[in-house]
């Protein structure tokens, strides 16, 4: 048995040792908001937060996360109580088909956490100076999330607007 703590709740999962964290969430815990896109860490649809940091849940084994706090899209918000980032994607129309959207939203929340912790990016002119969350910074920091419908302009708008509200990250 593998013990996983997901969205604040402990679960016992009886899964083959080869089970990825993504498959454990979707197939064993019925948390299907986290999507399987490429299953090789290239698309970002499977992004979850582990101890507050975003990772690709397809490229890690469930058994490697027994002592971690895992947050999925379901843990960020629910239809009756949306997370500010979810509200912002709705308001800015930050998607077309919606398949990559949970990964985009979880990744964006993790990304804003990194930004607030002062992490620089490849797009930052100065590694040590004050950082501005420009559109170029958002695009660079979100490059691990692919959108097949190419809704990028509205995704960037949604993240920028959400970053301007205090309670997002």
């Amino acid at each position: 048995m593998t013990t996983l703590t997901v969205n604040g709740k402990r679960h016992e999962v009886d899964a083959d040792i080869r089970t990825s964290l993504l498959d454990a969430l979707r197939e064993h815990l019925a948390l299907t908001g986290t999507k399987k896109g490429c299953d090789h860490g290239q698309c970002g649809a499977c992004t979850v937060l582990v101890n507050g940091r975003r990772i690709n849940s397809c490229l890690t084994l469930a058994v490697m996360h027994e002592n971690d706090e895992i947050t999925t899209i379901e843990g960020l918000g629910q239809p009756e109580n949306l997370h500010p980032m979810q509200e912002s994607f709705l308001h800015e129309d930050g998607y077309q088909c919606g398949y990559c959207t949970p990964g985009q939203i979880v990744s964006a929340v993790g990304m804003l956490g990194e930004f607030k912790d002062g992490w620089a990016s490849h797009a930052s002119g100065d590694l040590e100076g004050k950082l501005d969350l420009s559109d170029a910074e958002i695009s660079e920091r979100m490059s691990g999330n692919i959108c097949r419908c190419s809704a990028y302009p509205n995704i960037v708008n949604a993240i920028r607007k959400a970053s301007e509200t205090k309670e997002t990250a």
Partner: protein
Amino acid sequence: MRPFDYQRPAGADEAGRLAAEPAARFIAGGTNLLDLMKLEVETPERLVDINGLGLRDIEETDEGGLRIGALVTNGDLSADHRVRHDYPVLARALLAGASGQLRNKATTGGNLLQRTRCGYFYEPTAPCNKREPGSGCGAIGGYNRIHAILGASEHCIATHPSDMAVAMRALDAIVETVKSDGSTRELTLAELYRLPGDTPEKETDLEAGELITAVRLPAPIGGTQIYRKVRDRASYAFALVSIAAAVRLADGKIETARLAFGGLAHMPWRDEAVENLLVGEAPSDALFGKAADTLLSDAKGQGDNDFKIPLVRRTLVAVLREATGSTQQ
């Protein structure tokens, strides 16, 4: 994915013993290994999960440098204020690699040991001497746009994909390991990595069960530090060519030039003759051109990757201009 035995050792000694057989693999972040296991390019019979071993600290050393634990993530390392201030070429190389999600999982030790992204290596039905010794090389005479122009052999023309390791090679980093018998040793990156020769399946000098525990950076060398990466898209792509540079000027002449290259060879490339040619000279395009001539004197294109020869020349000249504050002449 093939079945495997999964072990979570409590200490480095136990980890080494558990991994001291050819069919065992250490797993840390797992972002490269699990990808390869899904494709059955890697088929370990045992995974030794080292995430419980600590090795997550970045400490200052007595010599004024840093010791980076093998399990420090690429994200945490790139964010460390000492790395950003004292080793900017390393911070820049880390930030130029992979995606935010991958950097939060990929570790320092694992990044050093990541495998080539050669498409023939990744495709189990294709010939590949690295994956299956003696089966041939599909890339020679095949699709070889991303492949090596330096140090390759008739058996393998794969490149090492890391950005981090290129910066570490320029910084003269030292890799600390513990063997399965408990003894420890230190290797430079030139000693850690091997050229393909006729054993491309053997990529490093590490023995079975030998664990990287830390990477040590010598005291900061200052100067102007640059990591320039040329790739097919602006983010989240491997380097076609990359250069890590640390250059210091004194009295209008180049006092120090440390240059390491990614995307060119089976290991992060460094050429002392190039650096020696630059030191003591006043910066000029003529000098930079001579440096490129020296670097590329043995370069060999494979067809699709012929473009890398002029590309690395132009990139080197651009990096040296920027590092020395000189303008186009």
